[in-house]
């Protein structure tokens, strides 16, 4: 072990002036843009959730927390929560699994690696509308999926007419759509892994699975955190795919929060109420993320 150089870190309780100035300089551009165009509108929207605005009336009538109270008593909302939680759990799990698997498979000197990467990335560049239409078509009771299942002797269900099968289909569609993106994220992280420890471990006789389990997975923890957060946000806000695949049906079976929000605000003209749903969704996702943040040690890799 080489001796680590000694760095004099100012340990005073005063903030380091150089860091403060640099921080201010570096943060300013992004924070200004985000502040004006993202944060301020959010505050604005929070106020909107306390009104009964329908999107058109020139006056927004203030109604306090009525929207939130109404939400708590709205059976459609609770159904939406249930559907979204199940959906999010599936998407997070499968996103991590599929993204990692594809990344690991592609992270080796493999012939045609570029071609594979291109292929696995195709769903990500495909329009959501097209993707959902194709899946809808393939999941028709007389369609492709069921005919393949029939080959192995399974009678496929009427996928989009049963609430749980429809949700499963939606989950698979979402994971499929994002597989390239998740794989790219993991590939990025894999590039930063120090090769040395792998060689050491192999010399020590560790098997492939052991190396994966005890070295790769823990070292990828920060990226896994990130992938899960992304998957959470995707599932809680999902709209495009759901809209085209099932429209929220069958009878609420795939009515995820994103769909519920959009329908309420844009289709039924209940903007105030729809915005309230958005904020509740935000709180939920934030809550789950905070729990995850704590559990993974503030998103830092174990060093």
């Amino acid at each position, binding site marked *: 072990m080489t001796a680590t150089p000694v760095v004099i870190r100012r340990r005073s309780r005063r903030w380091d002036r150089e860091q403060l100035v640099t921080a201010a300089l570096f943060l300013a*551009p992004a924070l200004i843009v985000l502040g004006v165009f993202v944060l301020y509108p959010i505050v604005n929207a929070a106020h909107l959730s306390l009104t009964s605005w329908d*999107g*058109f009336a*020139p006056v927004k009538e203030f109604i306090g927390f009525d929207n939130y109270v109404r939400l708590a008593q709205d059976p459609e909302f609770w159904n939406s929560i249930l559907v979204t939680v199940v959906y999010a759990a599936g998407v997070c799990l499968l996103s991590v699994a599929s993204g990692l698997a594809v990344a690991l498979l592609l992270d080796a000197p493999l012939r045609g690696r570029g071609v594979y990467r291109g292929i696995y990335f195709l769903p990500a560049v495909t329009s959501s509308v097209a993707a959902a239409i194709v899946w809808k078509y393939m999941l028709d009771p007389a369609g492709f999926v069921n005919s393949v299942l029939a080959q192995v002797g399974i009678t496929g269900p009427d996928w989009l*007419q049963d609430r749980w099968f429809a949700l499963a289909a939606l989950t698979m569609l979402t994971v499929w759509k994002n597989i390239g993106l998740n794989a790219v994220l993991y590939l990025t992280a894999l590039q930063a892994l120090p090769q040395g420890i792998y060689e050491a471990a192999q010399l020590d006789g560790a098997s492939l699975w052991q190396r994966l389990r005890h070295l790769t997975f823990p070292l990828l923890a920060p990226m896994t955190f990130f992938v899960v957060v992304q998957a959470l946000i995707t599932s809680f806000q999902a709209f495009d795919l759901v809209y085209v695949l099932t429209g*929220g049906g*069958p009878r609420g079976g795939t009515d995820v929060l994103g769909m519920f929000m959009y329908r309420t605000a844009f*289709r*039924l003209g209940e903007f105030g109420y729809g915005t309230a749903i958005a904020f509740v969704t935000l709180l939920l996702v934030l809550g789950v993320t905070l729990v995850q943040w704590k559990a993974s040690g503030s998103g830092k890799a174990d060093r």
Partner: protein
Amino acid sequence: MHRKTLILGAAGLVGALTLAGCSASETSDGATEVTVWHYWDGANADAFDALVKEYNDSHDDVKIAPSNVPNADFLTKLRASATSRTLPDIAIGDLVWVPQIAQLGNLADLEGSVPADTLTDINSALTTFGSIGGKQVSLPVSANNLGYMYNKTLFTEAGLDPEAPPTTWEELLDQAKIITEKTGKPGYDLFTQAGDNGEGLTWNFQVNLWQAGGEFLTDDNSAAAFNTPEGRKALQFWMDLIDSGTSPYAKWGEFEKGQGGSAQEGSWMVGIWAADPPFEFGAAFAPYPADGSPATNLGGEQAMIFDNSDAETKAASDFLSWFLEPEQVTKWSEETGMLPVLDSVATGEDYLDWVESTEPRLLPFVQQMKDAHARPNTPLYPKISMAFAQEIEKALAGEASVSDALDAAEKAVNNTIAKG
């Protein structure tokens, strides 16, 4: 330093773009610019552009500038523009949107701006629809309605006469059952799912409701009016179709794929399919019960003028008046396959001759215009439609009885109206 210059360069580029902010030019050379937003696409958009060009060429002091806004996001764009006074001068949108848009409060009263003759010539159901709060806030620029369309090949296959479509509910049911028996395919598609806004189900159902003699809401839109023997009769008709197996639940779309005998479709399908029919199809008026009356549901686009400024409002009204003259209405209808909104054109020889010689399948829809109803013009309509459809769907799915579903629907609709 290399990288530093790169980053600074990028920042500079961004800054330059910010300052550039090349905006579209406003009214040039003194002409008043009238912006028109519509959702017409493809051939319809081209036809509109052609008419606009004709008007622009003959009017030096005005420039009509049309802009397509996809229909799914039309209201969103209007909402956003309303909050910052960047509204267009004319908005041409789905008739169902008018009551909501009227709530903005700045729609011009078209009664004074469009000639009285034109107003009386327009289909009265459509004019009444646009009369809200004592103002004529919108006028129709195109119309369509629902009728019976069927697959002639399947009819023949099932041993039915392809030139004798059903004229009553009873005939419809019988013929549909025969089709299913002989070909194994659905005989008649029903729109049985509420989906994300209910309107598909609601507006199809209203046809049968009106045919049976029922009403959807009371005249002043203050309460549900469909929970009556007539309403039950209409719903029972749907149940009969579903229970007999000829209209499977949640199977809308078979007819359009060429795998179903018939369906209640909009008049626009005739124009869309005429050039390149996916199969041999026929059209007829919507069959009504032997003890009922003919009726159909009106759709189409309505034009609204926003009171942005006196000059623009006047210019916009002039354009609209011109667009609603019989000559333009005839040209417009013939180009697009939409139904004429002027009674004089719809019943006039020229137009009817054109229909019979060019597109006879449009005739039943044209003839139905006199029996056509428009939906309630309340801004709560989308919510009402959704509430209604969600309850009715339960009966269609076999989860509730006809009377229970109608009771629940009535309650849900009245609740929606009460909450405002």
